[in-house]
């Protein structure tokens, strides 16, 4: 009758599965100690093997900076294209024989059109000067006897005039004018640029996924080697009562550090490259729009970069632990 409440097979052994210490504060301290130990021991391991750590981190940083570098490059081009998108400007290249006086008169008639917001005449001389500055053929142009450039009239339709069909009709009207040799809507090549940008963005996504997978597997392999080197330690720790979490933790933190430092290094690589590219890009953009500023990795993007690389590091090591550590038993 003594064992009345001890149903055979049902009794749960009373081995504690909690961290040592009775009260909550003790448990909290133990938990904190365990994490601090894992955090610093993993950092210590990284420093102890600084040569191979540095190589791994460099490889990862290059992969991550490739992905984020292309991302920021496309973001810049995107911004550039975005600025252009707003202009539905039409350029009218006048026939060579049209004089400036006649061009101005023609411009005035266009101004009468209620659909038109602004008209600007670019004289042959202005066009030539601009061409000399930006084309790089300055001296060659000087050698020309006669200015080969036509007068150009830049027509800016009212912003309300977004409808493509209306714009097309307007363009056709201009094309039929006797003064006009050739009329072109800037929109068309902006559109082309837009589709190029779509392809580029898609490319960045694919590249990022591939490189991300690369980062994942490089981290996993690094942790696998680490695990292999520390086989004895793992076995001994298990023999003296280490839980699986205790064994896992330093490796997970190790993966975190590798990912995190790679992210930091990648940030520096990308920022350096953008600093180098800043001038050429801004010169290029100056041709179209003065309001353009080169984009660097902003706060959110930097945060995302660091978080993603750290997470890849942790996940990479988790995969290895999940598949390899099970096999590692004492003896």
């Amino acid at each position, binding site marked *: 009758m003594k064992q009345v409440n001890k149903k055979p097979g049902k*009794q749960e*052994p*009373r*081995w*504690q*599965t909690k*961290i*040592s*210490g009775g009260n909550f504060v003790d448990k909290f*301290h*133990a*938990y904190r*100690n*365990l994490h601090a*130990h894992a955090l610093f021991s993993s950092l210590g391991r990284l420093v102890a093997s600084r040569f191979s750590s540095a190589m791994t981190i460099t490889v990862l940083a290059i992969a991550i900076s490739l992905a984020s570098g292309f991302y920021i490059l496309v973001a810049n081009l995107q911004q550039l294209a975005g600025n252009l998108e707003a202009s539905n400007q039409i350029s009218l290249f006048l026939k060579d024989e049209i004089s400036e006086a006649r061009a101005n008169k023609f411009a005035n008639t266009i101004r009468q059109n209620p659909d038109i917001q602004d008209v600007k005449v670019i004289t042959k001389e202005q066009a030539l000067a601009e061409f000399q500055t930006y084309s790089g053929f300055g001296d060659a142009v000087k050698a020309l006897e006669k200015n080969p450039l036509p007068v150009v009239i830049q027509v800016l339709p009212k912003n309300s005039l977004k409808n493509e069909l209306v714009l097309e009709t307007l363009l056709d009207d201009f094309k039929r004018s006797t003064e006009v040799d050739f009329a072109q809507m800037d929109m068309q090549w902006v559109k082309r640029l837009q589709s190029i940008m779509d392809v580029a963005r898609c490319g960045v996504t694919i590249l990022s996924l591939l490189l991300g997978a690369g980062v994942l597997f490089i981290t996993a392999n690094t942790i696998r080697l680490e695990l292999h080197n520390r086989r*004895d*330690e793992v076995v*001994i*720790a*298990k*023999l*003296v*009562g*280490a*839980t*699986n979490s*205790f064994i896992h933790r330093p490796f997970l933190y190790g993966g975190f550090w590798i990912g995190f430092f790679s992210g930091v290094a990648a940030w520096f690589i990308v920022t350096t490259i953008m600093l180098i590219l800043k001038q050429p890009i801004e010169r290029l953009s100056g041709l179209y729009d003065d309001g353009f500023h080169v984009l660097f990795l902003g706060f959110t993007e930097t945060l995302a970069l660091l978080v993603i690389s750290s997470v890849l590091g942790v996940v990479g090591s988790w995969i290895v632990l999940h598949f390899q550590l099970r096999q590692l*038993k*004492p*003896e």
Partner: protein
Amino acid sequence: MLKFDNVSMRYPGAGDVLRNVSFHLERGEMAFLTGHSGAGKSTLLKLIAVIERCTRGRVLLDGENLNQAKDRQVPYIRRKVGLIFQDYKLLQDRTVFDNVALPLVIAGYGHHEVSRRVRASLDKVGLLGKEKKYPLVLSGGEQQRVGIARAVVNKPPLIVADEPTGNLDPELSAEIMHLFEQFQQVGVTILIASHDISLIAQMNHRILKLDHGQLVAS
């Protein structure tokens, strides 16, 4: 404290390594486990640390059936059993201090507590002052003392040693055995596997003798 109840053990592919082994170690008792090589001594000790599980019968530690312990409970069982090995199983790239501290770090003790307990434990085995040394520069006897310090640092109620003096000369072996007696005197239960008959005979303790997996004397 420790009770074997009709325990049989068979490795897959091998025959019965232990057959109907029954004995009971009282709290604070010290016993030797002897027998020829291959008699099953190591296997018996592995059952206590749940490195292996028996195929029949029950192993009871503190009244709890080890066979029913879940995998996640095993680490906490091992913390109650101080394990000592013939080859010491020390981490060669860690100092004596770090080696002894391992069970405490695993249990989540803070820095000061670890420091205090490691020193106390090293003091007991007579190695105070060697904390910063690496195992490789120590003699075999000293390395085994580090192993013992690590086993007792967490104050487990049971110490289990598998051929702890197997690599030591007779004089050092006797010293190590006396060290175990000191732990017994403060109430620790101790089970030592050894085939060093002459050494065991000198000491006045209970002897469990295994022969081809069967307990022939206890």
